[in-house]
């Protein structure tokens, strides 16, 4: 199994220039900010809403891929939005669940993620998905490239090891995140 920031680093070579990323609050946003091309939509709060935000972005940017990177705590808090996203199935929306079965950011308290059979759950949404349990690095690289290359709405659920890099906080105020992101979109559309 890889650590969250290793998976996020591994994403770099699979991303295309116009791809849009939405990252869930806590460590994941921080890692996305430091490791991946900027600017993206880094959520600092709104726990539970990364998929909803990604859905709004995917519907309004049909020619661009939108990748939502979410922790299991965020995924579970907004579980309903995975059904909403599956209902609309925007072909450009991709969801990467980094599952450490913990609220790692707040001190590693357990989530209830371990009770879910993700393959069955995702299968019930009638979507394309991959459930990679305890996958090797090679397998993860392969899964990430499939996820980003897929032509349909897809979800990749990855079990990850806890652990983080010591990174500074996101330097941009949220208003600056919006400004920079909107400027980038305006340029590329």
């Amino acid at each position, binding site marked *: 199994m890889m650590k969250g920031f290793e998976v996020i680093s591994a994403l770099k070579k699979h991303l295309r220039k116009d791809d849009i990323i939405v990252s869930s609050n806590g460590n994941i946003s921080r890692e996305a900010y430091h490791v991946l091309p900027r600017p993206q939509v880094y959520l600092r*709060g709104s726990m539970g*809403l990364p998929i909803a935000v990604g859905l709004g972005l995917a519907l*309004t*940017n049909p020619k661009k891929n939108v990748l939502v990177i979410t922790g299991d705590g965020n995924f579970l808090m*907004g579980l309903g939005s995975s059904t*909403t996203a599956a209902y609309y199935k925007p072909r450009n929306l991709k969801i990467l669940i980094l599952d450490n079965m913990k609220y790692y950011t707040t001190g590693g308290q357990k989530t209830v993620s371990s009770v879910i059979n993700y393959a069955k759950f995702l299968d019930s949404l009638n979507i394309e998905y991959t459930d990679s349990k305890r996958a090797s690095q090679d397998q993860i690289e392969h899964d990430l490239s499939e996820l980003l290359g897929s032509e349909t709405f897809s979800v990749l659920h990855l079990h990850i090891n806890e652990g983080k890099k010591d990174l500074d906080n996101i330097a941009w105020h949220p208003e600056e995140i919006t400004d920079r992101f909107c400027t980038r*979109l305006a340029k590329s559309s």
Partner: protein
Amino acid sequence: MIDPSEFLTFIEKRFQYICGVPCSFFKEFLAYLTAHEKNTRIKHIYSTREDEAIGIASGIAFSGKKALIYMQNSGLGNIGDALTSLAQLYKLPMLMLLSYRGLEIDKDFPEHSLMGEVNEPFLKVLKVPYWNLSEDNWETEMKTATKTMIETSSPVALLVEKGVLCQ
């Protein structure tokens, strides 16, 4: 009741999306919207929760487009964090239609009483500018709310009493 076709014509000029969780106070308007989904420019996205609707509207606003959100005022209890740590914090414009449940007319619905009482103070505490939507003056009220939404690049609300968007 506001003529649903006039209301739809008005909103589809200003909003590209509409999303939310229903209230019976929006019944006739939503029925009209659903019946005309194929020939209106506005796209309707169903939501499972009100905070999810704010999340979707935020993604839409990040792309420079605008969403109108509808919800029962009980949904106000679900959206505090979505407003304060997302839509307001990131300066994302959106207009919320909130049904005004819990007034005298709703005395048989105790589940709405307390929210009916605290609805306006709640919006004030959350620093969400709001107006009432009325049958007689709705165009001006919608224009005022939309103008503030654009000028402040932030969420604003309109309170909708019984009989305004339903019979």
